[in-house]
């Protein structure tokens, strides 16, 4: 897309805390959960640039819920990539707000229960209730076909941003074989069968489409 040298990224706290080492653009690191606030500040200074945040499920759906909801409601002109693997990876496999019922973690060793920890959060569905966002889609990284679809969603989010639209959000279902206690193929299978059943893939909001 020719966006290198025109893009500013914000890395989160969590297992993607060193995301700034993997992406060859200007980046800063945000305090845990605050990436959408940081991106809102960056956006005020550089209205012409492409801005994105890269956040995990603990960062975005737990500690950073206030920031993401308000950034989305303001229709902030940046893109958030939400990597949902349903577990705290960096700290060693604790229950996340997106951990499924029955899923084992180091803080729910017999599996998450509704009685003890409530229900997992569906972020795309939640943000889609707001009038601020322009594009919300959930994709999965479980197969080559889905990865190609995910790439399309990423591109679309950036295209919307370049077209001057407001908040764009792509949730990417992802595995964490280590903390799920599964082999990579088993983890892929679980993501396809169990995770995507609770978090259905698809477009939750698309003002570009609605306008057509």
């Amino acid at each position, binding site marked *: 897309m020719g966006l290198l*040298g*025109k*893009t*500013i990224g*914000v*890395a989160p706290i969590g297992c993607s*805390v*060193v995301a*700034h080492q993997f992406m*060859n*653009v*200007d*980046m*800063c*690191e*945000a*305090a845990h959960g*605050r990436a959408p*606030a*940081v*991106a*809102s*500040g*960056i*956006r*005020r*200074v*550089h*209205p*012409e*640039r*492409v*801005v994105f945040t890269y956040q995990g499920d603990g960062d975005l759906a737990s500690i950073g819920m*206030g*920031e993401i*909801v*308000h950034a989305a409601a303001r229709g902030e002109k940046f893109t958030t990539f939400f990597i949902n693997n349903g577990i705290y990876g960096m700290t060693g496999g604790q229950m996340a707000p997106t951990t499924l019922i029955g899923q084992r973690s180091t803080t729910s060793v017999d599996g998450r229960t509704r009685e003890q920890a409530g229900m997992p959060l569906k972020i795309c569905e939640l943000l889609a209730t707001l009038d601020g966002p322009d594009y919300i889609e959930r994709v999965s990284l479980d197969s080559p076909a889905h990865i190609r679809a995910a790439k399309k969603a990423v591109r679309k989010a950036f295209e919307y941003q370049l077209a001057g639209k407001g908040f764009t959000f792509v949730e990417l279902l992802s595995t964490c074989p280590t903390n799920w206690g599964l082999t990579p193929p088993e983890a892929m299978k679980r993501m396809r069968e169990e995770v995507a059943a609770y978090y259905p893939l698809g477009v939750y909001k698309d003002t570009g489409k609605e306008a057509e």
Partner: protein
Amino acid sequence: MSEKVLMKGNEAFAEAVIRGGVRFYFGYPITPQSEIPEFMSRELPKRGGKFLQAESELGAINMAYGCGAAGGNGFISSSSPGIALMQEGMSFLCGAEVPVTLLNVSRGGPGIGSIQPGQADYNQVTRGGGNGDYRIPVFAPASIQEAVDILYEAPGIADKYRNPVMVLADGLMGQMMEPVVLPEPRHAFTSEEIPAAKPWAISGSEKGERSVVKSLRLQPEVLEAHVEHLYEKYAEMEKELERVECENLEGAEVVFVAFGTMARLAREAMEMLEAQGIKAGMIRPISLWPYPYKAFDGIDFNTTKAVISVELSMGQMLQDINLGVKGRVPVRLIHRVGGMLPTSLEVVEKTKKIYKRHAARQHQLLSRLHPRRRTPHHHGDAG
């Protein structure tokens, strides 16, 4: 120079930082400083700037972090409990070396406390509540003019050191009106100018080496070297940013130490005491960090019976005063809290009590140490 205008404190503060080069405001409503976001929401868009009301103080400080990391001159105002919520952000800003100007129009605590003036944020602002080794310069002006001058300068100081700078006022200063001379507006960088002016900033521009702004340093030796580097900066700040006003120290019998509005009250008390034959001096720290410890060497220890801190807290500044006094003379406290203010008469009466007690004690002590020594200014024939 511009002409003198009569302005309310909070509005003068806001005007001063805009003139000092600030173009971005982030804040969350809190008494007693809400006139500042109101003023900024009206004025910044007219001057090529942007106003953003944050969803919380956590949001505000992190928006300012993004703004500063991107090379913008950001400004945040809040009051005590709001400043408490921003402590994590301040630690991040210091660790990642991101500039911002902060204004704390402080009120009473602990907890939600009261909305009346207070100075019980002293430890919060000078010691900081965030994690890790970091420091933030804090200035405590005593008049609206002094606040205007410091706030005008603050964005430049923040940029120079790539560190947050805080100005501490209180509810009294925010709400009162005084004549001020506003300085000439300074140039503020446009987004096009930022990549050249601040090559370290994340401006998303083609400039060779990409920029990364972060506080994470996972390798111990790298983090150690970074903290050492921060402390070299802080050492320089200690040399360059210390500010203090000393008055009447020579021959003073009591010396007040007070900052902000309490210094004004102490000055009134000084005049009243002088009229009653007690010579009072004052050390007024303008920078609370770096604290002007050396100023205390200027106390006339031959004449001074006690150093008295006049504070709107339970004596949070006493620790620093004692570090300056080094046991050379007793240190005492006159204070009110909870939003209560002492009157200058109350300060005078309490000072006289302290003075008499210590003058008598000093006399006794001298008599014991030097039984034959004449102590002329009390009992000429004693000994």
